[in-house]
């Protein structure tokens, strides 16, 4: 239907109020505040230029956080995509009780990140841990928790996040896979194409926009990884699992260094927007193949 001006106003106003009041306005005010010495309980505010940002960038702890999140994103996102795609691909053809399979495989994503952290704490640490149980069966002595090991802590966090997010990726990918025209699959099958060829020639080209969108979500949310770190390791051991979001949280609400917290939060946002620009460029360019 053709919308009148009044229609447009009615349609867009609620969203505009909600988004500007609770997301855009705070974000922008926060951005301005990072160029000053503002903090909620300080009495005098003056212009500080880029000094808040420089202080954050010079903080070695933040450097470690950047390194950790780079490792995290580089491993977690591809693993989530590959495992999620694998699950969706297995569910592509009708099987008995597909609805139930789908639901059961979505369960890990339904667990809240915080409950997830609590759960894995007990699964990995202590007398009733799954690790000790497994090593007991293998006749080994009890194993030390990987969370307490500086080299294993970050890979463990990655694994836990993959466990939680891969099912969600499968959930998002399956409708896309199911909507690939049947003839395309049939052609490939009759041509005797292996399943690898089918994935490359049929599935991936049709799923390109969807895969890009999912990747955008995963990268953005991974860059803000906080909940699991907060509950499971508190950034430790040492600073082996400090992420930028944890750094920001800790600065703002832990040690009351508001300007550093806000400035590092804006660096995370800037990174996400950077990824967003790449995403929009990729999604608007039709597949080159």
């Amino acid at each position, binding site marked *: *239907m*053709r*919308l009148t001006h009044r*229609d447009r106003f009615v349609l*867009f106003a*609620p*969203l505009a109020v*909600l*988004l500007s*009041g*609770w997301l855009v*306005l*705070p*974000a922008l*005010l*926060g951005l301005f505040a990072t160029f000053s010495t503002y903090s*909620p309980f300080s009495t005098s505010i003056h212009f500080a230029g880029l000094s808040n940002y420089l202080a954050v960038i010079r903080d070695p702890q933040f450097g470690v956080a950047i390194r950790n999140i780079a490792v995290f994103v580089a491993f977690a996102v591809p693993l989530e995509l590959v495992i999620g795609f694998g*699950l969706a691909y297995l569910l592509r053809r009708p*099987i008995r009780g597909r*609805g139930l*399979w*789908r*639901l*059961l495989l979505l*369960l*890990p*994503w*339904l*667990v*809240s990140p*915080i*409950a997830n952290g609590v*759960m894995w704490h*007990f699964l990995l640490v202590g*007398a*009733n841990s*799954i690790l000790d149980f497994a090593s*007991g*069966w293998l006749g080994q002595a009890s194993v030390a928790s990987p969370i307490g090991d500086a080299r294993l802590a970050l890979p463990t966090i990655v694994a836990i996040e993959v*466990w939680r997010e891969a099912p969600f990726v499968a959930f998002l990918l399956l*409708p*896309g896979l199911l*909507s690939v025209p049947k003839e395309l699959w049939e052609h490939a099958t009759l041509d005797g194409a292996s399943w690898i060829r089918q994935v490359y020639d049929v599935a991936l080209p*049709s799923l390109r*926009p*969807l895969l890009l*969108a999912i990747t*955008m*979500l995963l*990268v*953005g949310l991974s860059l*803000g*990884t*906080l909940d699991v770190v907060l*509950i499971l390791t508190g950034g430790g051991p040492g600073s082996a699992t400090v992420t930028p979001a944890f750094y920001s949280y800790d600065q703002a609400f832990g040690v009351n260094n*508001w300007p550093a917290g806000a400035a590092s939060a804006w660096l995370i946002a800037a990174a996400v927007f950077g*990824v*967003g620009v790449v*995403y929009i460029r990729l*999604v608007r360019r039709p597949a080159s193949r």
Partner: protein
Amino acid sequence: MRTLRARRRRDAIIRILLLTAALVAFLLPLTWTVLASFGSLPDNSTRPPSWKGPITFDHFREVGIAEPSFWQELATSTAAAACAAALAVLCSFLAAFGLARSRFAGKSLLTEGFLVLASLPAMAYVIPLSDLMRRAHLADTFAGVVLTEAAVMTPLAVYVLHGALRQLSTEWEEAAVLDGAGLFRVLGEVVLPLTAPAVAATAIVLFVLAWNLLLVPLVLTSGEIKTVPVAMMDFFTFERELDWPTAAAALVISLVPVAILGGVFHRVLERFSLDARVGA
């Protein structure tokens, strides 16, 4: 043809085997937790490890003793997530319809921009938000939590609903307009019924997302209003020597509402599609 059928059969068996393996791997941690909540714990000191503990419901009762306000928090969480999801879907549905029926330069940029906004981690904006909400006297109120959670989730909802609405043929709308229907009648009597599955699926996904939010309610509240994730966080950080079966019971309880929702509406959930260019 025979070889093709044999191959199909073999493929089907491999598929079932792989799916079963995946299911075991993904559900093992949860099964462990559910068993623990019923008091069934492994005894790792024996060789080989054995299972101990009679099945009991006591740990579910202990949750209420260890955290006296747990049931209250459960109710708050449910109400807040439901209100936030409803509000977000309402605002997003209107805007997505407006977007789908408008043509202007930069429209696709705006639509994709919503997805980028949806990818923005909460940490990027909660610090100033907590400050602003305190100044607006909305901190630590139910309304404040609901409005913020709704705002945080609208970008994803707009993106998804725009995808669903864009594919809708305008025929029925035009017919209704010719009959003299205004905007709200077109929306309520034509557009909404046609997109109801997608709208319902979006609402359910948003409910799960809202239910699981930690950072937003954490920084907006200071005790008056408490959601389950915040309570868990407090509980776990202040009393690290938490008893595992009790924690497991709390965990199972917090999973039950979303699992039931998913179970009842799993047919509807299949209509959740992130991308505008796929799905029917």
